[in-house]
């Protein structure tokens, strides 16, 4: 019996912080995006591979990349198409701008309500913010179960997913009902290379806004009327609906107080459980160290 799954991969275009030079930060302490090439967030690549493996096994499945950002972030969707995805959606709107993880996960969860996937996969965290919050928050907002730190999606049936998790002190195999959100760890299989035929097929894929950009004039040799699959979908706040005030700046309670260089001194790690007492202790410690305030 052939199974069909709809899989949404959450991907983010990030500045490549792995090769940071002297000019990586502006004097104001923000990231100097001009000095850092924009790349596909590495762990999102691992997530994409897991999604494509489900499609390899069940070819009738559909894989879509969902990303939010300025229109140049459509590059992430093209990278997906080059590797075998069926399409992608770019959430792009001034009203999305300035979002912290809360507002971002709200926007993404709204889009996912519309896409109705069986599975959402995302990288564990992005290399620019390193928060690891967006995936879990999306699951919370959708009321879905979540499996974090996944190394491999081992099995998938109509209503269940089995995942191997990479933890600090070993591995764990867990099963969840579907729908489910999975965040994927860097130790998972690396993503497959771009496929030559897909690259040739989709190299002129673009969003409507990219097409309007004067910098791209003459770049797209083939029109989207002739080949409609070259059109990448853009969604705005109006397309995903929901509460206007939960998007962008308005929906972002996070305020950056200060940016400073830190040197890790601690040699030992400390384990907190999810008990109320431990959480109180952790918050107390962070407050005392002025890590949060």
């Amino acid at each position: 019996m052939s199974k069909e799954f709809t899989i949404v991969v959450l991907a983010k275009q990030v500045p490549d912080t792995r090769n940071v030079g002297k000019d990586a930060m502006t004097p104001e302490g923000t990231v100097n995006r001009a000095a850092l090439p924009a790349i596909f967030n590495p762990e999102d690549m691992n997530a994409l591979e897991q999604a494509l493996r489900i499609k390899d096994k069940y070819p009738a499945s559909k894989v879509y990349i969902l990303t939010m950002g300025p229109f140049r972030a459509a590059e992430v969707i093209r990278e997906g198409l080059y590797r075998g995805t069926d399409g992608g959606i770019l959430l792009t709107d001034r009203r999305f701008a300035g979002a912290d993880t809360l507002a971002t996960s709200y926007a993404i969860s709204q889009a996912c309500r519309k896409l109705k996937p069986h599975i959402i996969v995302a990288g564990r965290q992005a290399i620019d913010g390193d928060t690891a919050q967006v995936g879990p928050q999306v699951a919370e907002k959708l009321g879905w179960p979540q499996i974090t730190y996944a190394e491999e999606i081992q099995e998938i049936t109509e209503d269940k997913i089995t995942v191997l998790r990479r933890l600090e002190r070993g591995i764990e195999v867990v099963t969840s009902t579907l729908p489910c959100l999975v965040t994927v760890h860097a130790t998972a299989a690396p993503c497959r290379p771009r496929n030559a035929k897909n690259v040739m097929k989709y190299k002129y894929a673009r969003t409507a806004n990219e097409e309007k950009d004067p910098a791209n004039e003459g770049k797209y040799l083939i029109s989207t009327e002739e080949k409609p699959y070259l059109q990448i979908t853009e969604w705005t706040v109006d397309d995903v609906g929901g509460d206007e005030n939960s998007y962008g700046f308005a929906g972002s309670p996070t305020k950056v107080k200060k940016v400073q260089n830190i040197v890790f001194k601690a040699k030992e790690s400390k384990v907190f459980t999810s008990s109320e007492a431990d959480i109180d202790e952790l918050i107390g410690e962070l407050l005392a160290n002025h890590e949060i305030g």
Partner: protein
Amino acid sequence: MANFYKDNADLKFQFSNSLMERIVELKEDGYKDYGKYDYAPKDLKDALDSYDKVMEIIGEIAGDIIAANAEQVDIDGPVCKDGRVTYAAGTQKNQEALINAGVYGIALPRKYDGLNFSMVPYVMAAELVSRADAGYGNIWGLQDCAETIYEFASEEIKNEFLPRINKGASCSMDLTEPDAGSDLQAVALKATYDQEKGSWFLNGVKRFITNGDADIKLVLARSEEDTSDARGLSYFVYDKNWGGVTVRRIENKLGIHGSPTCELVFRNAPAKLVGERRLGLIRYVMSLMNGARLGVGAQSVGISEAAYREALKYANEREQFKKKIIEFPAVYEMLGVMKAKLQASRATLYETARCVDVYKALNALVTPDRKLTPDERKEAKLYSKYADMLTPILKMTASEFCNQNAYDAIQIHGGSGYMKEYPVERLYRDARITTIYEGTSQLQTVAAIRYVTNGSYLEMIKGFEAQELKVSEEVEAAYPGATEKLQAAKAKLVALTAQYEEAVGMVVDKEEEYIDFQARKLCEMAAFIIESYLLLLDSQKSALFVDSTEIFTNKTESWNTERYHYIKNSNPQVLLSTFKNVKKDLEIIYKD
């Protein structure tokens, strides 16, 4: 995060060559595949952009995956067990990456799931892969066999085998036997036709077969009883799934460890005839061999590039006498010459590939309802001749240069280079085979000497000479004084051409044995002049090649002058008998 295509501007430059327009036009034949295949190009710009983008994919796989696996593959090598070969783990990963990237079958037409690319990007891919791991370069390069099937086999065989290439079916060409190496006319593996079963069966032994446990094999075998020469040999295709071939052992080689070299036993192995009987060696193998030689050219350039980069990096990092060693003239002189040899080999490689492209693409246009026009026939003949002229000098010089560069790369590393810790020792071992297989340098001379004696090389050189030197504005802007340098180089080449003519004149009317004796020197003289001119042509369009043109032309002057004097000082009668004297030493060796 390395990309072997993007970190090397010499490569993209190849796509700007003026002949590319003609090549793509012929390959795409009016862009008739556009609309039929979603990955077919719309026009020239689209096609060249696709070449560029696919090279980026291969460059990334070469840089990030194949190069990273090369050291371990060299240590592990393939394993032979129960008559079957298993690749080293790293080789399997390389294979998986290139198969997933969909780049196998790069030169095959789209109807066989290929990319329909011309030889230039195909050869470039071979260069990229070989720079990362020369041994793996062989496994990649053997898809050449698909070209032979495409050119000569029946439609039925094409449909059966060719679509499998893109999915990653590996190939081998099974020619050599214990008693048939350079002399393939001596091939004895027997092919017999079984009337009852309606099939050919192969029996015998093959040796030194690269990738011998491949999925698809092309086998040269004796189909005609009571024959002993080339005219009794036919060409067969064999599918591993049919059974009947086992690997007796794999060779323990000096280098290219990733590439399994097999001894094979054929026991009633079923096979299908490719093309016509009796034409196996005479036509099909000869055609395959030229492709394979171009492949070794690409492999040699890849190794040269790797050796040059390792040497350059080390010279910049190593300090002695409180200075980086690259600051010492003795070291940077070596690096300059290495780069000149590398760029001259590359210029020759792609010029040869373009010539092959034009005539092959023209021939591919021919169908029952489409004949070539007289002009097209002339064009095909001309480029076919150029390809035949350039292939042996490419194979000979690029392989010798890559050995010299690997040697110098170790020298620049000093004692460290002799240790296993640095990749140069592997490059040195890998390089060594390139002057040997697919026809030794000595056999390339046999193929090339006719163009010395019949004046074809001279004619080609005179053609270069007749072209007016026109240095582009971009080159002058990027490299002030380039024009003067290139004019001086050209003047030197004109003088060296006269010297070459004189040397040929001293030999050409002598007995055959004497011509063979001096052949290598004469072929090299012609080759070095031609390669200097190819660099000179590229230098007029890009400043990337100006320095190497100057250095290579100067080296040509000294190499050719040495050869000229050697020939001039040779007395045919005395010389041949002098060299025959080595035979006397045999009496000493075999005294007991």
